[in-house]
């Protein structure tokens, strides 16, 4: 690509009239600059994102195991894909992921939008409190998630104590991360605590993008606040809400750190989301070929869903 740019640069230098030539030679042609500026990023992404992806695809058709680099590698076709798609454990992992993604997004969107709406009332000190609310999302999910395991301890944890204080339940009678029923909600709660601020910020941007004069016109027409909310605020903020849902959806589909440290997929495999299964297959059982195939299935799923979603988003935007 650089050669093409160079060629055109020489071509332009040769054909230009004398006066601008000096400038073009001194300053490179626009096309040369464009490629000079863009290509390092593209090269880095090719080396660290695309090449590994291609390698993953190739490995997914083999029985390669990373802990046995000298063993003979056999091409086994689509065997891995077949066994993954018919494996009940994989479907259980997909269900755990779906549960996690669905509930985190639902709760965070409602909570985040509500908070944004309230912050947009511009009460005294709203800037300061917005910053305070932001803090959890800035922190490391792994480091903080690890500490939530302490808060969730049945006898000594603060969370159980607070719940028992308000409900009268015995604090050692329930285990947030030790019980099959509660563990999926334990991770939903921590993720919501961390990421509601993010949804709030994007919604806030949406609310602030609505021009004042629309509300003024609505006031002149004597539309009620309730009606203004449903006919102006919500529809006009919808593209932003959908964007927040997209970002959170992609992130939580890939969820690893928080779950790995809070429950590590347990108890049993109740909270074993897709990334945890992938980690077990790839870095504990060392089934590199199998896990590569699983990785590709996950990537295609998230890529496909995101594409469909972006189409819907664009429709809403262009309305």
């Amino acid at each position, binding site marked *: 690509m650089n050669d093409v740019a160079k060629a055109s640069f020489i071509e332009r230098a040769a054909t230009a009239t004398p006066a601008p030539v000096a400038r073009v030679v001194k*300053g*490179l042609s626009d096309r040369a*600059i*464009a*490629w*000079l500026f*863009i290509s*390092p*990023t*593209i090269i880095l*992404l090719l080396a*660290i*994102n*695309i090449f*590994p*992806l291609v*390698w993953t695809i190739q*490995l997914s058709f083999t029985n390669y195991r990373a802990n046995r680099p000298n063993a003979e590698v056999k091409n086994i076709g689509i065997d891995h894909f077949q066994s993954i798609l018919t494996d009940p454990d994989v479907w259980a992992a997909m269900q755990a992921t779906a549960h996690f993604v669905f509930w985190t997004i639902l709760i965070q969107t409602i909570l985040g939008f509500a908070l944004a709406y309230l912050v947009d009332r*511009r*009460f005294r*000190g709203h*800037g300061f*409190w*917005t*910053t305070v*609310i932001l*803090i959890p999302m*800035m*922190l*490391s999910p*792994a*480091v903080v998630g*690890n*500490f939530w395991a*302490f*808060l969730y301890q049945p006898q*000594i*944890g*603060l969370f159980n104590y607070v719940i028992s204080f308000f409900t009268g339940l015995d*604090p050692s009678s329930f285990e947030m991360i030790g019980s099959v029923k509660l563990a999926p909600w334990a991770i939903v709660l921590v993720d919501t605590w961390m990421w509601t601020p993010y949804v709030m910020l994007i919604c806030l*941007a949406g609310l*602030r*993008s609505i021009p*004042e004069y629309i*509300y*003024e016109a609505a*006031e002149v027409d004597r539309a009620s606040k309730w009606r203004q909310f449903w006919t102006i605020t919500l529809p006009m903020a919808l593209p932003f809400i959908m964007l927040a849902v997209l970002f959170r959806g*992609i992130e939580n589909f*890939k969820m*690893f750190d928080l779950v*790995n*440290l809070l429950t590590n997929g347990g108890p049993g495999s109740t909270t074993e989301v*897709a*990334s945890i299964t992938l980690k077990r297959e*790839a*870095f504990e059982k060392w089934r590199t070929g199998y896990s590569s195939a699983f*990785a*590709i299935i996950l990537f295609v799923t998230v*890529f496909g869903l*995101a594409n469909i979603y972006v189409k819907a988003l664009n429709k809403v935007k262009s309305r």
Partner: protein
Amino acid sequence: MSRGISHAHSIVEPGPLSRNIAGIIVIVYAVVALVPLAWIFLTSIKTPPDSISYPPKVIFDPSLEGYCNLFTTRSRQTAEYLETLAPPSGLCEKIARDRNMVIVGPSNYAPRFLNSLIIAFGSTALSVLLGTAAAYGFSRFKVPLKDDLLFFILSTRMMPPIAVAIPIFLMYRELGLSDTKLGMILLYTAVNVSLAVWLLKGFIDEIPREYEEAAMIDGYTRLQAFFRVVLPQATTGIVATAIFCLIFAWNEYAFAVLLTSGEAQTAPPFIPTIIGEGGQDWPAVAAGTTLFLVPILVFTVLLRKQLLRGITFGAVRK
């Protein structure tokens, strides 16, 4: 955000009552959300017995034992042996003696923390450099397949980190980049640069082209116009982008836990492995967590304006 325009007499301004109610709800939420963080700090200045007492203690004698344990490794000794030793010299040594221990050396926390600093700042600098250049390229020039390239750059973020880690693990093993700081810097840069390009393109798109064109008519070359006209205008955007890259690299766990174990290990995979006798040493874990979170807390408060602008970029129009 819409500074300069007065809303004082606007008819759509919310009334004082709805304003105050909104304020109270938001403040209650913020305070509740801060409780876990306050608890991390309180735990870090408790003694191990205080940290696991029931009911949880809010009032206690503060102790530096957590911080001492975080930075040292200790070994248990018999009382007879301890009596033969000279009196303890420092505070941490004294705390250790009270628990029938002696300090045998520094822990790995400080080097892991330093690794976090090097890798986070290194990858941020590189991401912003590459991202600014690419964003300008995409913003101002006709690039063939521009939309496809931009989408390709974004789509690299959709890969689950574990999926990327499998081939990266193999590739780094071949190249000798396993467990090296350079390897982690390159990897984090690759992850961050896509975000950097998209964020910065938004910022640069907003800078009117007329500025550069005017400069170029005045005799600036394109590159000079970029450095002297566009870059100063894009400072806010660059700072905002740098903050995001820094926060991501500082907090990253999945790649770090799978691809590093010693030399290049960062703090996030290290902190959960801090254990005392008989399980996790929660005050030490809390101390490590507190120290790790403080830089980000300071950042968030100092640079909140850029942060807000970064997250809501492009959305705020006059």
